[in-house]
């Protein structure tokens, strides 16, 4: 297979700055989005994802400006997520220069929104972000549920069924985050990643828990992910994207080097 697996650095953006929270608290400043994006592009990032974590929705202009500024200078695919609730939101982000938008909470509350958005702009622009948490007890068959509000609110939706449904509704890609692992640096939830990836026909991006380069490779080899997303290991220069890609290639994964 000649198609390369992708590494996607994720930039959490709050009020126009890149930040990274550990399990949604203890936010540390990590820089100017354009500078960070340009550095990642130079290091060989395959795509860049921005998550707008600005709590107030009245500050939407800020993320639009961030996307515009980055898109003017960085010529790789850009995804934007966070607070995307209407087709208008989708269009604004695409017009600002995003190639894809990630829809999360709004999909849970109104699945038809995913269908509407993908009908209007095409499935290739619509990523459905899924935040899943393990709910099965020790010894029970594995089961994961969809959570909203940063992992605080359960929805009762089975993660695998939900992923299949979202693809049916027009999701062109799934961004899968394990809420149990997010920010922990102990690796992806591999059984979850594999279960979702094998269940859907579209690419799956694994997210949540990367602490080492082997975690990235494991996500592809054992989790069957098509792409891996990570934030903090790149922001704080623990590893460069290039080192990560080389490491994955050394483990036999097809990469763009």
């Amino acid at each position, binding site marked *: 297979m000649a198609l390369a697996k992708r590494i996607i650095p994720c930039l959490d953006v709050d009020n126009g700055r890149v930040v990274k929270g550990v399990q949604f608290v203890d936010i540390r400043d990590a820089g100017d989005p354009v500078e960070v994006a340009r550095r990642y592009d130079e290091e060989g990032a395959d795509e860049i994802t921005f998550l707008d974590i600005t709590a107030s929705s009245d500050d939407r202009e800020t993320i639009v400006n961030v996307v515009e500024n980055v898109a003017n200078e960085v010529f790789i695919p850009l995804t934007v997520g966070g607070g995307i609730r209407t087709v208008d939101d989708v269009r604004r982000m695409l017009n600002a220069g995003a190639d894809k938008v990630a829809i999360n909470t709004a999909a849970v509350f109104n699945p038809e929104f995913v269908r509407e958005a993908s009908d209007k702009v095409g499935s290739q622009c619509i990523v459905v972000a899924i935040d899943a948490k393990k709910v099965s007890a020790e010894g029970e068959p594995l089961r994961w549920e969809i959570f909203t509000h940063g992992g605080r609110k359960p929805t009762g939706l089975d993660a695998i069924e939900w992923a299949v449904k979202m693809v049916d509704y027009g999701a062109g890609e799934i961004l899968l985050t394990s809420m149990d692992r997010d920010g922990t640096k102990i690796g992806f939830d591999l059984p979850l990643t594999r279960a979702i990836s094998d269940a859907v026909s579209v*690419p*799956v991006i694994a997210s949540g828990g990367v602490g080492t380069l082997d975690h990235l490779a494991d996500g592809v080899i054992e989790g069957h992910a098509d792409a891996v997303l990570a934030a903090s290991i790149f922001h704080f220069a623990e590893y460069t994207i290039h080192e990560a890609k080389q490491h994955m290639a050394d483990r036999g994964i097809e990469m763009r080097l």
Partner: protein
Amino acid sequence: MSSVIAVVDYGMGNLRSVSKALEHVTAENQRVVITSDAREIENAERVVFPGQGAVRGCMQHLQDIQLEAVVMKAAHEKPFLGICMGMQVLMSRSEENQGVDCMGLYAGVVRAFANDKSADEKLKSQMQDLKIPHMGWNKVSQKRSHPLWQDIKDDSRFYFVHSYYVDPEDEGLVAGTTEYGIDFVSVIARDNVFAAQFHPEKSAHDGLQLLKNFCRWNGQT
């Protein structure tokens, strides 16, 4: 007097990336214009024809704003770069949306990855495991030399996102192929036309190089 590179706007997708990437590589005297104005396209020195989304909407929009003939004319006359859906609609017909007639500049069909009718059973089972859309960085094997390949190594990777691919009748059109379950035609070229399934505007250094080559191409091969 600057020479214009017209990016054809027919309401299909975001053209900002294409124009920003072109602006990044234009020569001193060149100007990039996103336009749906027939006269502006006719007067342009070169034309970029992008497009994304579904084929029926693409053809419909193109016809609604009466640009089909203008685009066809440009494809016969001046350096012309088709991108993604802008490549697919150059063919006679697409299998997408239950079958749609396209512009017919070249004889051939746009096929879906999943239900390739020419595929044998073994190939079909191979294709079953593939994720659709074909999304990400894949290699383009250069099938012949072309001015737009200048300073781009054979088998360089470009960014793709699509579920359909062109299958031209005339093999002479093929300028690049890519493997995704099958070997499919990822680049066609003839005379003043070069068209790619991938997105040069999203393909980092090599993509920008290709756009730069296009900005300097005289339309001869």
